[in-house]
Every structure is written in C-alpha cells, then in structure tokens.
C-alpha cells in the first residue's frame, strides 16, 4: 500500500455553500490533502503568482478546481493564464461549474482544462461527484511535480 503525501488543492469558488460542500466531501474521502480557497479569479491569480498579499511561501497547487463564472476575472481567463505560464502550465485544472453550455465545455477543453464537470444540483450527488473526483485525481492519477 502506497502512502500519499499531502496534495495541495486550490479551489476557486465564489459560492460559500459550494466551498463548504467541497471541504466536507474531501474530508469524507479521507485523502490527505490541503485545501486552499480563493473566492474569485483575481484572488486565484494572486495566489498562483504570489502577489496581492500571497507571499513566496504560498504553495504551488498540485490540482486546481476552477469555477467558470467568477467575479473580477472569470475562470476561462484564469485557465488561459495558467496554461501560458510554464511553471504552472502542467497543473491539472478541473472546471467545476453550474453551466452546461456547450460553448463553455468546448472552450474549456480547447484552452486545456483536464476535465469539465457540471456541478450536480442535488447535494448528495455533488458530494458523490467530489468523492469520485478525489479518488480519481489523488489516488489513481499521477500529478506532475513542480517543474
């Protein structure tokens, strides 16, 4: 049995309820992880690029869960910036959003997101989706290490 080192997850989400559900699901999945939350796209960029109050000891996330519709800077723009900056460009980014618009799905994959997931509306289903997501990305997948 392999032991898992803590995985730094960055959740970019402006809905406080969804933040709580995500925290709960990840705790339930008993996977060692360190969840960091930013509430809008600009704060996410600040976190990633160590600016706006985020110091150089801010960890590089191993995995990013990114909402699409965000205040200030939207999720697509955040994704674009991640993919065009080599130290960050290999980090898996999962779009987690209420939208099921086909153009959002296509655009996300085109910009290099690793999966597009529509948040289930029902609470239990949302929890289950996050549990499977945690198992898939943290237990089964190999994440790229810092470049």
């Amino acid at each position, binding site marked *: 049995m392999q032991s898992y080192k803590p995985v730094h997850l960055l959740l970019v989400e402006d809905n406080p309820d969804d933040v709580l559900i995500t925290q709960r699901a990840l705790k339930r999945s008993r996977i060692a992880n360190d969840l960091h939350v930013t509430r809008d796209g600009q704060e996410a960029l600040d976190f990633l690029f160590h600016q706006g109050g985020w110091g150089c000891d801010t960890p590089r996330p191993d995995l990013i869960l990114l909402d699409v519709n965000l205040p200030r800077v939207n999720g697509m723009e955040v994704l674009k910036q991640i993919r065009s900056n080599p130290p960050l460009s290999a980090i898996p980014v999962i779009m987690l959003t209420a939208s099921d618009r086909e153009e959002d799905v296509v655009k996300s*994959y085109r910009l290099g997101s690793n999966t597009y997931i529509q948040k289930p509306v029902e609470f239990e289903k949302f929890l289950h989706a996050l549990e499977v997501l945690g198992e*898939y990305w943290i237990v089964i997948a*190999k994440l790229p290490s810092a470049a």
Partner: protein
Amino acid sequence: MTPSSAMRILLVENNPDDVEIARHALKQSAVGHEITVARDGQEAMDFLFYEGEHAGATHAPPNLILLDFNLPRISGFEVLQRVRKAHTFATTPVIILATSIRDENIAKSYRLGANTYIQKPANLKQAIEVLGQYWGIFAMLPPAA
C-alpha cells in the same frame, strides 16, 4: 455530450490481459459505452484517421482515448502529439496508462495535452472502474468536432 450519453472509447493497448481487465471493469462501472481496441500506435492512427484497414470506414470518432505508452510501431507519445494536432481530436480527452512514473514523462504528457496520467496500478481493474465512473457519469465530454 451530456454525462449520460454513451462514451465511445478507443483503448490503445498491446497487452491482451490489460484489454480484458479494462473491458470487464468498464462493464462493472455500469457506464454506457462502446469500446474499440487498437493493439499498437499504428492501428490507433489508422482507426482515428480512417487510414489503412479503416480507409473509407464511417465509424463515429471516439470521445475518450485510453492510451498505453509503450506501444509497438508508433509510441503513445507520438500518438498523443498527432491527436492533439488534429482539429477533430483537439479537445478529445486522452488518458495515459503507463508503467513509468518518471517525473519527466508525467510532466511531458500533461504539457502535450494529456488529460490524466495514470500509472497502471497493481489493481488495474479498480482504477478503470473509477475512471469509468469519473468520465462516464460526472465529466462532460466535448461534442464531436
């Protein structure tokens, strides 16, 4: 493209045991899907681009590709690169199944546009079941280009 619509999986795998495990696990995870198997990189390219024995064929393109890395004839890296350059498959999720856990292979795969890098675990069946649930139930796949 809804999560419930059928997945058309192309499995590129030259180990017959792993093919059987994957087929069985995908059936277990109760996800509607059809699966095509290519046994090396060249067969995969022929299927994807309607060449060789698939010249003139009319099958729908896959919307999920499971790609082993160590393949005869054309390597998984090469297949990944060619798939990403083709307009039809620019957004198609590609999951690498590899035995290597060298950091450089992992990072390179993600940079080339792989959607997930999975090291084939001892329990391949369980990993494929989770994969089937993740992509078949929760993820939204892009529509065919």
